[in-house]
């Protein structure tokens, strides 16, 4: 709960920090989870390639990387608020 006289920069900054850490957490769970499920202890004969990448790298790292770049853009230009740093 924000204090009554709290500086207006703090609430958005806290919200953005939590959102960024949540995105990191989701990314970690998905990427590590997917890669561990499909990239470790697997029969190499079942390995396929997507655009030249091993399938598990493509879906576990390359695609999320692209998605994260888009999300970062949306975060920066649509979600994050500007604030006066001087006062």
């Amino acid at each position, binding site marked *: 709960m924000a*204090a009554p*006289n*709290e*500086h*207006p*920069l*703090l609430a*958005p*900054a*806290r919200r*953005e*920090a939590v*959102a*960024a*850490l949540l*995105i*990191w957490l989701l*990314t*970690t769970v998905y*990427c*590590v989870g997917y*890669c*561990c499920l499909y*990239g*470790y*202890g*697997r029969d*190499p004969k079942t*390995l396929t*390639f997507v*655009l*030249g*990448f*091993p399938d598990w*790298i493509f879906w*576990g*790292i*390359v695609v*999320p*990387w*692209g998605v*994260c*770049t888009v*999300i*970062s*853009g949306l*975060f*920066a*230009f649509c979600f*994050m*608020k*500007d*604030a006066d*740093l*001087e*006062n």
Partner: protein
Amino acid sequence: MLLAVTEVPTPGYGVLAALLIFIAASVWLGTLAQKAMEKQDFMQGFFLGNRGLGAWTLALTATVQSGGTFMGFPSLVYSFGWIVAVWIGSYMVVPLTGFAVVGKRLAQLSRQTNAVTVPDLLRVRFDDSRVGLLASILIMLFLSFTMFAQFKAGATIMQHAWPGSGILALSEDYDTPIAKDATATGESVETTSRTWKQALRERLPLSPKYYIGLVVFSITVVGYTLIGGFLASVWTDLFQSVMMVIGVMLLVCLAVPMAGGMEQASRAAIAATSSDIAMGPGYSTAGREFLTPGLALSMFFVWVFAGFASPASMVRVMAAQNTEVMRKSIFLLSVYNCLIYIPLVMTCIAARSLLPDLGKRSDEVIPQLSLLVTRDFPYHTGEFVSGLILAAPFGAIMASVSCFVLVIASGLVEDIYAKLINPNATEAQLRRATTVSMVAVGLIAVLANLNPPQYLQALVVLSGSAGAATFIAPVIMACYWRRATATGALSGMLGGFLVYFAIYSCGWAQNWATANPSAELANTIIGILGKDPMIGAAGLFRPYYILGVDPIIWGLLASIFGGIVGSLASPPLAPELVKRFFDVRPASA
């Protein structure tokens, strides 16, 4: 069937020319920076660029890239395969976490406290000089290790940039003893007339080219940083970042088609090694598991937290012009990382089929590949282009050293000289102290590298992660928690540092015992710590893996625990102090 191409041309004058251009450009940027910071407050201008960093400079300099990243990372891909994409994968969120978690608040606090350094900020925020002093000492300790390693890397690159000196690489195997050079050139060892030379060789055991490189590199970097301060450092950093992305784009566009496409390159790599090169935990001939699931999880902590809690990164964020710049930086850096890391992985997988015989010389992968893919360029332009590609990691090393010299000097001047020794120092005295401390830092780095210890690169990783484990809790607490106290900040810093260092020390002891099984103490150590689990990269400075994860996770937990318990167990800070940093200032009468 694709034929492996192993006939790589050796570097000629193009590489040396490219390095000299880089050096000249850096000095020029230093003089430009000096003009830009003139007529401003000296400390704010020299150490923080008057808090005027724009989006490009902030985005492309406030990260953890260095020459080691550009040369060491490709070596890992070449050695272990596609799994290294997972190892570096968390860089997809580093731009977001790097600026959005504490960036805005840190920039505000640095203005409210009028702080030039991170220790200065923490000292004023917690109203306790012990916090500032401990932070300053730890930062100087961490950055010194990293900086010494970068001096060695810079000197090594200059040594090998001479035509005919072999392939340019950062490998520590390249520290050729001078005796070998003498034998190669047919010199006889006449003991009677060469006593002084032998004495010199004992003290300076490396090739003379290394020492010339060390001196030229040190004078250049300390020189332009001294001229232009913080702005010189970030502008050079920006310059090398741009060069790096151009180099990576060139390499990927030339190397992947040369290998017959990405899928063909992967299949050729599998044929040359085993299917492990396309699977987890990675390829290894020594039976090691490079990236187990536990270590993969760890890497998603290491890069993210080392990214926003490292002192060098925090200083850049403090210098941001405004929050709009930070927002733009998030996007710019996201795109930049996309263009660097995945293409680098692709390039080095392609190198597996183009340069199949590198073996233990995997550090040479980028230099050799750049010479190979440009060898058919007309009019010897290929040599110059490859020189420019190779100059990018050199520039990265210069930029890193420049930043470290600056942060260490700012600690000495602002946190020690101006706060403890001479609180009433005039601007002239501060300028003199800055010059003396920067020259001293450069001299110490040169002396430390006259006979450099091996495995400095491992210490770089250690000090980066230790920095994150030490500062993450105190910085987050300083930004967002009203109840945080000086005791909490101190226990957070010490808790993170000591736990991380203790776990790493156990790893060293375990590795020593494994390497010296006949030693009396070895059996006792192995009995307590167990045998080498054979996970992670090989090397004497491997950490000890509790529950199979990197020590940074335990260090972070200790830092958070210490910070919370220390704060709650101590009296709250004075309400006026908390209000100053958390509440709206009352309108002046």
